[in-house]
């Protein structure tokens, strides 16, 4: 597909958790808990608050169409700020420092004062009903083709346990939010820019790692389409596919629009009570319903059921809108008869509503109040089909398709955080921030300076153990040996049965012992494994592989050689291999094999 010809414009927002000691606006640690460990429960409702300009955010309004009671789990690692029972602490300077470092790496300009805002979020994921956020720096560069518009520091939201139950352990962990300009023109470019930003973030060594610690939102539009924001792409590998599917969806919606206009289609918005039509129905959903309402979409036949991206139809879009009212979904005649609804019932339904061949009928089943609300939303979405693509916030589904979440938020969702004072950022402060080497540059340096092959250089640079490696090198350990020990031996020792935590000091100590000849390379895994079980480096070496001195080796070698004088004289130089085998049996892991070979060679020469 020629994306540039379609006028694809994409931008991304990256949210990355920062690995700070404390949360952004309180002193709780930034640890994620198992929700089974919660010890407290708080239940709350959220209401839409008016912005300081006097207006109400449309996305927030839609989220609160149902008055929902949210349940929050609390832990012995969370406090009053997380449950909105206490004003926030001042902004965490450690987090600000990381964000300013990243801003500097993207060549951005910091704002002279950081003003914290409240971004209204009333879906339950924030106990206060807002997420605290502050712009920190503006206008940066990525590669030659793209621009970063803003970086902000903000609070992470709660983790959803299920439905309306949330866990507050994650709430308040600092995030950096990086927003690019809509400067990407192909799905692959979106992937590459996201990857580059992710790499830059990891180059700081101060961001959290693992699934869910980084999330990408993608903004996508095509010519004649509309801006759609897709939230929560967690895997980088899916990001290009999400863009491709969104382009497909927008193209399909535009095609549906053209077809509707060609057919002179019409949504008159009339709603009928069709509960009686289904009085004797076998459909489980309809049988239970107190009320069933229907509406006719004139000229929509076949289009409601048209696939617009894998697994999604125009009907799914309408269903997403209806669900805002608390109904489970809808039925449309493009998919009926099915789900226990018979052909005869469909026939009567269409006849009752006066629907023709070209028309589609939509029905919803629930309480009357929910049905009325849902019908309003369905009709609203059906009317939008005449305009093509509505501007929306959507969420990613498994595989890369998306579902409607809420309208795009407006400026009214932002409100100043009155409980936090502005934080000045002086020129001197920003200038003093140290620039960090990009991981991609590190890989190159490890190869050229340390003589690592590309695979090892990359593996080491991107490893979580990079700080340990850099410390080892700084303490004079040979880089390739350090990398091999950390990437291979340490990993293996960590996997051993009953392994505890092996401290960085222990790893460095073992490497130093080997380099000094006090322990054999071959014994590293065993020594580390012993350390993992709680022994000190010295004790581990003494227990697992007491070092064998050159003198002791000489004595041993002399003894073994003297018992085999005839054999050696017979074989000459070729005797080295078999004799070496005998010696190694005694000393393996206690002295370097190279030394054994040297000593043995001398001994053989002596008697030959």
């Amino acid at each position, binding site marked *: 597909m020629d994306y540039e010809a379609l006028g694809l414009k994409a931008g991304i927002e990256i949210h990355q958790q920062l690995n700070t000691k404390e949360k952004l606006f309180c002193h709780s640690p930034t640890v994620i808990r198992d929700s089974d460990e919660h010890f407290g*429960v*708080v*239940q*709350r*409702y*959220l*209401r*839409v*608050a*008016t*912005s*300081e*300009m*006097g*207006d109400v955010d449309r996305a*927030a309004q839609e989220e609160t169409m149902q*008055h929902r*009671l949210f349940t929050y789990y609390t832990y012995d690692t969370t406090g*009053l700020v997380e*449950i*909105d*029972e*206490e*004003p926030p602490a001042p902004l965490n300077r450690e987090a600000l420092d990381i964000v300013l470092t990243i801003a500097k790496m993207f060549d*951005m*300009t910091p*704002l*002279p*004062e*950081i*003003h914290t*805002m*409240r*971004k*209204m979020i*009333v879906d339950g994921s924030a*106990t*206060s*009903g*807002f997420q605290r*956020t502050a*712009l920190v*720096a*503006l*206008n940066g560069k990525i590669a030659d083709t793209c621009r970063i518009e803003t970086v*902000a520091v903000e609070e992470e939201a709660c983790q959803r346990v299920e439905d309306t139950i949330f866990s507050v352990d994650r709430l308040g962990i600092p995030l950096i939010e990086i927003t690019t300009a809509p400067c990407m023109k192909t799905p692959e470019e979106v992937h590459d820019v996201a990857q580059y930003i992710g790499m830059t973030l990891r180059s700081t060594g101060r961001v959290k790692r693992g699934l869910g610690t980084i999330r990408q939102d993608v903004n996508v539009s095509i010519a004649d389409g509309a801006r759609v924001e897709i939230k929560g792409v967690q895997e980088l590998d899916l990001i290009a596919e999400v863009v491709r599917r969104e382009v497909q969806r927008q193209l399909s919606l535009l095609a549906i629009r053209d077809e509707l206009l060609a057919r002179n289609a019409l949504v008159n918005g009339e709603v009928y009570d069709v509960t009686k039509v289904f009085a004797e129905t076998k459909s489980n959903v309809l049988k239970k319903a107190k009320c069933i309402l229907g509406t006719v979409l004139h000229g929509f036949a076949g289009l409601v059921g048209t696939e617009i991206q894998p697994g999604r139809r125009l009907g799914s879009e309408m269903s997403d809108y209806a669900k805002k009212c608390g109904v489970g979904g809808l039925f449309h005649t493009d998919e009926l008869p099915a789900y226990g609804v018979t052909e005869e019932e469909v026939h009567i339904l269409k006849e009752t509503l006066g629907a023709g061949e070209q028309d589609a009928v939509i029905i919803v089943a629930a309480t009357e109040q929910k049905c009325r609300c849902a019908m309003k939303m369905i009709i609203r979405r059906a009317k939008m089909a005449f305009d093509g693509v509505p501007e929306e916030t959507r969420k990613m589904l498994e595989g890369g398709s998306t579902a409607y979440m809420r309208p795009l938020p*407006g*400026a*009214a*969702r*932002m*409100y*100043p955080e*009155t409980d936090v004072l*502005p934080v000045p950022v002086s020129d001197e402060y920003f200038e003093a921030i140290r620039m960090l080497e990009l991981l991609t540059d590190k890989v190159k340096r490890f190869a050229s300076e340390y003589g690592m092959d590309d695979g090892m250089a990359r593996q080491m640079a991107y490893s979580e153990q990079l700080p340990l490696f850099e410390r080892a090198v700084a303490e004079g350990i040979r880089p390739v040996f350090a990398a091999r020990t950390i990437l291979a031996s340490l990993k293996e020792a960590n996997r051993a049965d009953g392994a505890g935590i092996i401290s960085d000091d222990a790893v460095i100590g073992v490497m130093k012992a080997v380099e000094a000849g006090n322990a054999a390379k071959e014994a590293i895994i065993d020594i580390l494994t012993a350390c993992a079980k709680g022994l000190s480096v010295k004790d581990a070496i003494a227990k697992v592989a007491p070092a064998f001195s050159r003198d002791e080796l000489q004595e041993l070698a002399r003894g073994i050689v003297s018992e085999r004088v005839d054999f050696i004289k017979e074989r000459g130089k070729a005797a080295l291999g078999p004799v070496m085998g005998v010696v190694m049996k005694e000393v393996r892991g206690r002295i370097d094999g190279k030394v054994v070979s040297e000593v043995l060679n001398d001994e053989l020469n002596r008697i030959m």
Partner: protein
Amino acid sequence: MTFNNSDPVTVSFAGLDMEGIYINASGENAVVKLKSGYNICVPKSAVTPRDGAEAPSKPAAVPLEQNEKLPLLSIISTGGTIASTVDYRTGAVSSKFTAEDILRSIPELAEIARYRTLQPYNILSENMNPEMWQELARTIYNEILAGSKGIIVTHGTDTMLYSAAAVSFMLDTTVPVIFVGAQRSADRPSSDNAINAICSAQTGVSELGEVVVCMHSTSSDTSCSLHRATRVRKNHTSRRDAFQSIGRDAVGTVSYPDGKVVLADDAVKRGENSLVLKAELEPACGLLTYYPGMNPAVLDAFKGYKGLVIAGTGLGHTGTDCIEKIAALTAAGTTVVMTSQCMAGSVCDRVYETGRYLLDAGVIEAGNMLPEVALVKLMWVLANAEAKDVKRLMQTNLKGELDVDIRGEN
């Protein structure tokens, strides 16, 4: 270049030109709201006026609709967090909301009752004083006379217990008088203001007939407690359930969202009393918390006061070196009342020697009366009783402030 709040401006910063609305100055910098809604702070020199753009106008207020079939309640708004919003002068929260704004922002109230709204003043509660308590009591009295079936007083939480206790002593009420506030500001989606207000309206149409404080029972949004005005304290700086009854249970609870009001057996019921207002107060009264090592000269500051409440240690003590000064105060005509810093439990100055000296110095034991309540009661008693009756009245339960009347020793 000077700008006013809401002026359309262009910000040129970091190589970008951005449209926004001017908010205010911040030292050498200017705060501008961008189109995204973010406020950013840039050097003043980066801001220039923008033409052709209209400042956004505030949407017109929706007219209030009231159901004439529902009982009439009065909402008397005095300010506080329940009525607070951002103030761009300071950037902090101030109380500018009116009672009408409260009705508009909490539409559920209109389903419970119809309302008359009054605003005698609008302040944060730390700025309250006894004159305002008196004005409040008169306003409530007049509303009841005018046919109101219940009174809701919105009030800052910091000194709510003083105002509520003061109104308790000044007014014998026939209808529920409910003091309500919010611990978390009204401009946050999680504010406790709406549920507290809804629960107080439910109480307003209930069978209660006394002065109470209506606030969250727990940290959750599922119920409010009704605390007797003379037995309540704010026991936490910020939590929703900061208000707690001391030395007894709440006189009622209101569950949310069903609005069911459950009253304790000993709650005073609607119509049990006749309407009487005695709004005089003696303002020359003080409250002093004794602390170890306190210089007795501190007591000189209360010379000439009509009354002094001491929050003493434990059973009601001060250091023995204060006794002489206390005796001098009582001799000069200051009524000195002893309460305890312990909050729960009764004062008893007969157990230890120091206590007996204090009694000899003319100190009146205040039983299990809370120090703040003893202060406003003393103000009321001194203004409404003859000198010979002051001690007896201070030791007599008038509005639930004492568990029992205190027995005279002789």
